[in-house]
């Protein structure tokens, strides 16, 4: 995003709307720190600029910068030329939301989600690479159904495309599956690497309910030092045809 200095009246209405606080006061006008801007579009849509000084310049739509809006503005679909066969907005996948009909997370496996830049700080993509390279070294593989896959130069090593490393997005999800037996190893490794990232990461774990409705993994997670929040996202098992074990 950009603020047209000729139109800006320095009314100070827009800075509070910016989720990554990149609108600053300058020489009698406000300006956007475009290196920090994640192109989420909130200032353009919601700040109500009285002179319409805020706009999206053409450069914002050019690769690699175009990645920013794709991962920060839920109203923007992933560009088809960059994410062939994905056709969706938002930043993640069907994940556990449709697991009752896809069976992507079967018994015996866990899903893991690491959402970089959430809540509300944003992240440079190079921070993500610290985790993707670690995970591939531990045998984790990334699948083409996740937008992250298309950002990798070498998916088998978790290496990002060089030109993307300095791009900043509001958030991006690293999503993968692991065998139940790998939980302790993966969590220990992630604890270590997450201490080195220059952003925040919201961590999630996907699991099936047991037949009696219990979630035995919570005890294992607590023993590993992870606190399980009392609130969660639950697939109610209403999709059809349901995948039976």
């Amino acid at each position, binding site marked *: 995003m950009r603020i047209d200095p000729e139109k800006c009246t320095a009314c100070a209405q827009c800075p509070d709307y910016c989720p990554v606080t990149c609108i600053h006061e300058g020489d009698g006008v406000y300006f956007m720190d475009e290196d920090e801007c994640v192109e989420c579009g909130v200032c353009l849509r919601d700040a109500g600029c009285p002179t319409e000084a805020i706009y999206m310049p053409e450069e914002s739509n050019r690769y690699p910068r175009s990645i920013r809006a794709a991962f920060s503005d*839920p109203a923007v679909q992933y560009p088809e030329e960059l994410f062939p066969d994905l056709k969706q907005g938002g930043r993640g996948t069907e994940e556990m939301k449709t697991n009752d009909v896809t069976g992507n997370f079967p018994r015996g496996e866990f899903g893991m989600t690491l959402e970089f830049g959430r809540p509300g700080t944003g992240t440079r993509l190079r921070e993500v690479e610290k985790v993707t390279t670690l995970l591939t070294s531990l045998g984790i593989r990334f699948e083409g159904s996740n937008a992250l896959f298309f950002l990798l130069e070498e998916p088998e090593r978790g290496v990002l495309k060089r030109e993307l490393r300095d791009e900043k997005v509001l958030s991006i*999800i690293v999503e993968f599956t692991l065998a139940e037996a790998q939980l302790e190893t993966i969590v220990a490794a992630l604890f270590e690497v997450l201490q080195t990232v220059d952003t925040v990461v919201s961590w999630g774990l996907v699991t099936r309910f047991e037949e009696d409705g219990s979630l035995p993994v919570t005890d294992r997670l607590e023993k590993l030092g992870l606190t399980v*929040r009392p*609130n969660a996202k639950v697939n109610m098992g209403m999709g059809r045809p349901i995948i039976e074990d």
Partner: protein
Amino acid sequence: MSHSAHRCGTIRNLQNDYTMYARTSRHVNREGCGPKLRKILDIFLSENPVNFGSSHSGKSFAAGLDPEEYSRSLDKAYAVACCFSSASAIRNVLGKLKEADTGISIVVSGLIEEIKKIAEEVGLKPHTVLLSLGVHGRKELLPKEKVLEITTMCGHGLVATPLVEEVAEKVKEGKLTPEQGARFLAQPCPCGIFNLDRCVELLKEQLSEISQEGGEKG
């Protein structure tokens, strides 16, 4: 998109905060899903949701999305999101969805134990869960918890910390009512999962804490 999985809060102030998400699967039941999504939206609307919408609509009910216009647009959608402020509404919606048997996957976010209890009452068997394991990394970058309880109601992170602080200040000064403040803060969240009722309660809670602090000092 785990946009309702990591809402911050206490068991007490998450008690009446539920989001519901109907999501088609691309290779299973997305083709021609418009009429089913419309049916689901009708069921959602029959139980007085606090808010609804989806990213494809570009704005939420709280930001002026017209239900009829939205319903017509669902032929091009793959999901519908909605937000409720009571367990009874969720119970009723799930009962009606069970009867409608659309075959579209339904996800409910909220307190796990409450959701399990409601599922049992309605005769449903929860299938899969995404557990939230908290925030890691540079936590010193985060605002205070009271702000996070509001900003994380937009899972895409579009409600800015300074906006919450500004609105809370205006509510404190009496320039905005908590209700006006909540409506203001809901605007940037297009998916319609920002719970305005809970936001009102959180703003009132902050006011009450301020007055208690004043009382203690006095």
